[in-house]
């Protein structure tokens, strides 16, 4: 009997498919299409200490096989999330991964401390959002990333995952590992730009936006491949995955699990279909566990 589950730190997920932050609301909408508890876990929209309205429209713009977004972290804040959304998510039977963003290490700590006392299962520290005016992406710098993770780790006993930007260097991932992260999630969106050629101005009020979808998949896969070789803790692969075949590719590059974002917009059933496709793949290949193929692409390679 194949064991489809995976272990990340002290936590067991029933399968390696997780809904990505910002692409799945709080799970409720997709639960109308299928039982979302069949997924390994669900990441919440990025949460902040206080509520945020986010950026003005337009917030999304399509590019060839890709999607630029500039949502700007619209969210109810951690307190309202815990009060109004979390009970519903737990009732649905979900493994809840709370995605958290803040402006500085101090504020990350405040939000994480509040969440660590709630029923969330995992805290995913987002140090990689490209959509906040005037903010640098902390996760790109090893020292800043380490400072945020150190602060959060000292305030929280729950599993702590750290979500890195695609530009993160290996030293940032290693610094995060050193500070006690349980897993690394890679990648967040790539910074992109679109210009309205009628007006000559950027499409988005915040100029830059985050690129996701199939367009980024080979780029994300390359990052995951390198990080998996550079750290001991599990890497969770994200970026442009739309099918079970794509998910297998990330596992073979060394990912323990994967997150599905934009694919949910292409087909609301996408995440569940990937769960089913992976199960079939395991049976066809007579795999006993994911370990048998995890990272197999590295064998005999110079990295």
């Amino acid at each position, binding site marked *: 009997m194949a064991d489809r589950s995976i272990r990340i730190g002290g936590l067991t997920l029933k399968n390696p498919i997780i809904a990505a932050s910002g692409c799945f609301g709080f799970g409720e909408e*997709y639960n*109308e299409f299928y039982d979302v508890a069949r997924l390994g876990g669900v990441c919440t*929209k990025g949460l902040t200490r206080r509520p945020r309205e*986010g950026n003005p429209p337009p917030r*999304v713009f399509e590019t060839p096989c890709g999607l630029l977004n500039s949502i700007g972290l619209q969210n109810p804040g951690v307190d309202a999330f815990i009060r109004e959304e979390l009970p519903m998510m737990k009732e649905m039977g979900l493994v809840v991964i709370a995605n958290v963003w803040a402006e500085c290490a101090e504020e990350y700590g405040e939000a994480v401390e509040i969440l660590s006392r709630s029923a969330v299962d995992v805290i995913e520290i987002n140090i990689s959002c490209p959509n906040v005016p005037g903010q640098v992406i902390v996760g790109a710098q090893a020292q800043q990333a380490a400072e945020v993770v150190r602060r959060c780790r000292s305030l929280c006993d729950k599993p702590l995952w750290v979500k890195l930007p695609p530009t993160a260097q290996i030293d940032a991932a290693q610094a995060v590992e050193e500070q006690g992260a349980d897993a690394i999630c890679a990648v967040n969106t790539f910074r992109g730009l679109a210009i309205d050629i009628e007006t000559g101005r950027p499409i988005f009020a915040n100029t830059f936006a985050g690129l996701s979808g199939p367009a980024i998949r080979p780029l994300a896969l390359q990052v995951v491949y390198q990080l998996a070789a550079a750290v001991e803790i599990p890497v969770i692969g994200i970026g442009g995955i739309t099918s079970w075949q794509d998910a297998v590719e990330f596992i073979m590059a060394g990912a323990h699990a994967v997150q599905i974002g934009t694919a949910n917009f292409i087909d*609301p*059933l996408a995440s569940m279909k990937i769960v089913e496709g992976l199960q079939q793949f395991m049976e066809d290949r007579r795999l006993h566990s994911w370990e048998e193929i995890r990272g197999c692409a590295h064998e005999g390679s110079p990295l």
Partner: protein
Amino acid sequence: MAEIAVRTASVLHNKHIAPNVFRLEVEGSFRAKPGQFYMLRSWRHDPLLFRPMSVFDRTEESLSFLCATRGRGTDLLSRLSAGDGLTLLGPLGNGWERIDERIALIGGGTGIAPLYYTAKYFAAKDRSAAIDIYLGFRGRPFLQEEFAQVAQRVYRSSESGEGGEEGLITEIFNPSGYDTCYACGPPAMLAALSKVCQGAGIPLFVSLEERIACGIGACLGCAVRTRKGMKRVCKDGPVFRAEEVFFDG
């Protein structure tokens, strides 16, 4: 509320109606309230997303959309022919709820699309309803006989002056005498209507457009700031009370 589902259906007709305007009809029994929309796609990953289209008409056997060709997605939809497959996600959005006796439906550009089924549905639901339709076209008006069948009176304007009163539909429309007004069209038209309806103290519901990604309320890609906070056009809307909307952005 009808359940949201992903379905594939085959195209019955795809008719060219006016320059860059087509009517796409698919086979099957679909549920939808007036003012709701479906997300359509007839491709895999390119374009990436579905394209939102309001319900133009619905019968027991079919569902149709009135579409303007804008970019790649609508161009691909315009090329579908009978027998081709189409994937539909819906019905989506809140739709138009209240019915009063005397109703004005005002549409501009492709904003006229949801008005046909709205008039037909309201008239079937309440025989005493008196429904007038105001249609603003850029060029030569179209679908005149169709609209005449579902409304008491149909008023038309054309910016080019061809086949209708020359000018904007907002120059013809007067809200007095109506209990409720419903409007769909460009933001400037909605803003002008909001002003006159507010002045006359007559409730106005407007259907807004934003760029849509998921279509079901999960991504916040379509959110707009309203007097009642951030709202998702695809889920909390597309229909809003005009007083809640900030028309100046």
